[in-house]
């Protein structure tokens, strides 16, 4: 088969998405995107008491890049602590996927945003101010 517009990694994650599904007792859920734009991404997080991602699942309506970005994102998240999660940028997802076509970079951005939303939901569920996520993100950006 000829190579497509996507890397082999993208194709692998598209065909065999990792961690696809929902977590019934998730303590953080984030959804981003817009059906009219053709992408909706939803991430379910289960963060343990010692701040480690114990489990993560995704559901995505979208193109090959969107599905592969979500799948890869979940792989990169598992076992990470919250700090590490906040450090996970879309660039890391793109790199891990072996690149994305320029017009599809936004799919990886959506994955990063879905993680943020899920984290905010997690803080909210713990009664904390979700704005902390934005602050921490801003701090990380500045430090880099």
């Amino acid at each position, binding site marked *: 088969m000829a190579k497509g517009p996507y890397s082999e990694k993208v194709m692998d994650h598209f065909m065999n998405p990792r961690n696809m599904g929902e977590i019934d007792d998730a303590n953080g859920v984030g959804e981003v995107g817009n059906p009219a734009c*053709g992408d909706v991404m939803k991430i379910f997080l289960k963060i343990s008491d010692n701040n480690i991602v114990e489990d993560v699942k995704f559901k995505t309506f979208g193109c090959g890049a969107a599905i592969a970005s979500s799948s890869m994102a979940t792989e990169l998240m598992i076992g990470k602590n919250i700090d590490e999660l906040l450090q996970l940028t879309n660039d890391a997802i793109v790199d891990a996927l072996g690149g994305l076509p320029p*017009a599809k970079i936004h799919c990886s951005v959506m994955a990063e945003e879905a993680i943020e939303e899920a984290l905010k939901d997690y803080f909210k569920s713990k009664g904390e101010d979700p704005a902390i996520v934005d602050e921490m993100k801003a701090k990380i950006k500045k430090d880099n």
Partner: protein
Amino acid sequence: MIYLDNVAGTKPDQRVIDKMMPYFTEHYGNPSAHFYPIGREAFEAMEAARAEVADFIGAKPDNIVFTASGTESNNIALKGFLNHSANKGKHIIISEIEHFSVDTLVTKLISEGYEVTKLKVDNGGLVNPSDLENAIRKDTVLVSIQYVNPEIGTIQYTEKLGGICKSKGVTFHVDAIAAAGYVEIDVEKLNCDMLSIAAQNFYGPKGAAALYIREGVKLMGLMDGGFQEKGYRSGTENVPAIVGMGEACAIAKAEMAEYVPRLEKLQKKLWEGLGGMFDFLNFTGHETRRRPGHVSFWIEYIEGESLLMWLSLKGFACASGSACSSNILAEDEDDLVASSVLTAVGVPTDICAGSLGVSMSRYNTEEDIDKLLEVLPETVQKLCEMSPMYNRDK
């Protein structure tokens, strides 16, 4: 691979290829070189092809201009005509479901002072002839409406639309690129002044297309240069491809009566098979006035590119009008453009939906359709399970 994207181009007929070959190897002369056999042979083969193309659409050879693509035929027709009649009026009418090569072109003309009316289509994709009648004004110079839409397969009431233009004295161009080889074309019956067809859409080669221009209709060529094609289209002619186009026309003329009913049968089979499959599958286009062998639909909850990719992995080549699959080479996500045809025929954009276009060729068999009907449910199911929208509203 089961190829079901024939609106994007068909596999050339082997007879077409065989006919072309000697024009690569033996008769390679320039058809403008009339004074030695190798040139003259090329010229005469080109004129024979011109006669075949003319015959295929009920025209005279003198009215046929060869171009290199459907887009070029449409561009010469519209720009060439408007550039020639610059001062005759500034109103143009098209439908809202034209191909980019008509829609973009005409839309750009607005900045040059043209007024453009884009006629609405109904849910079946049809322009209402009385809408055209009402839209024609004193300063209307040109109407351009496609014969068949490649995405939703709808066959317009082109004869009626042409009759209206004729009675009102307005020049009428028909983009018949998705029609040729599947729907009978007769420029007299259609009452058209110009008509575009492209060989690759009906078992001919890429690189050859034609524009019919009725006597008396004056155009200015897009390109300046030599004397080729009476100046409508300068540049050395692609003789092998033109010869192939002639053969494709001759074959289509002879064999449409055989393969069109066969395609209609396959279309019916697929339509019926899909009809009972999911309650969230919706057909697009018209149920009866459609290109034989063309079935198109949208499926809620799943996205078109993913559907295309899965079908490809399962061995099927189809099309989608989804934004994501539109222009994968773009540098920017803003350049991903969803088909406006689907919106025009009432597909709601505020829900998650993937569109799929299946366009068969005369090479397709019943088995191909059986296989597609077998594979589609599991593929859709897989994507539904992955979709955050599926089951949400249940």
